[in-house]
């Protein structure tokens, strides 16, 4: 748990989250959602998509990676989803990736990555990061789960090389009241 984090994202504590890895400057949220922990993905830095600060640049980047717009955050077997955030000026701010168990994984700029959800176990939405810093989720996109990016961890197959939450670790999660 992090008081600083909960101060920056007031909904986090109520919705439930866990710190998944320490701070690193090596990559950011977009790189993380795209499965690349070796680079910082941002226009002007490294950006394999249409350039710009606005949401279209972010949706264009994920479209170039095979994602198409979709209706919402529901978990769909055979698909991986991203939630794309923008502020009220229209600038993209954040990308979160849905894991196969329905939790969302977010790398918070140069800080930690976290796993987050809402209190409703049947509907694990990425709304916990909505607020002043990241604005609103403006777009959901999905693509079929990529066999080439899957790897086996224990009994579970996960995408993008990201770890699924193990049962022992779930006990450490910040549970909503």
């Amino acid at each position, binding site marked *: 748990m992090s008081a600083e984090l909960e101060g920056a994202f007031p909904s986090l504590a109520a919705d439930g989250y866990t710190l998944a890895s320490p701070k690193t400057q090596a990559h950011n949220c977009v790189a993380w959602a795209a499965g690349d922990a070796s680079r910082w993905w*941002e226009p002007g830095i490294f950006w394999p998509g249409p350039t710009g600060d606005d949401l279209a640049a972010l949706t264009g980047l994920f479209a170039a990676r095979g994602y198409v717009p979709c209706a919402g955050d529901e978990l769909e077997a055979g698909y991986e989803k991203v939630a794309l955030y923008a502020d009220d000026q229209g600038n993209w701010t954040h990308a979160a990736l849905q894991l196969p168990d329905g939790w969302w994984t977010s790398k918070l700029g140069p800080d930690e990555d976290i796993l987050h959800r809402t209190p409703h176990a049947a509907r694990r939405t990425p709304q916990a990061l909505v607020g002043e810093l990241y604005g609103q989720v403006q777009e959901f996109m999905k693509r079929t789960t990529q066999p080439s990016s899957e790897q086996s961890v224990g009994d579970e197959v996960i995408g993008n090389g990201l770890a699924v939450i193990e049962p022992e670790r779930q006990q450490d999660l910040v549970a909503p009241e």
Partner: protein
Amino acid sequence: MITLTPEQQQDVARRFQGLATRWIATTRYRSNTQALRNHAVYQELVALGEPVVPLILLELERQPRVSWFIVLTGITGENPVPPAHAGQVNAMARTWIDWGRQRGYAV
């Protein structure tokens, strides 16, 4: 390269440290630093101009942060990072530090 008196150097360093602290706080949790070009702290940092370039390079040497690259480009108009190092934060920082040394900045 602009030459400052010791008093001017101290004043620039003092102003820079205050702004640097605010810039690091502003860019914390943020992935889209390029969208902050209109931010007041960015504007103030760029307005300090070339005298703060070596101070930023020292910050990069101490701890590489993506948010300094946009400020360096904003002040110098340059981007010395080769495509092969694009996005690799440590390599980008080293490139900027080397760039500064080649131009005679004390880093």
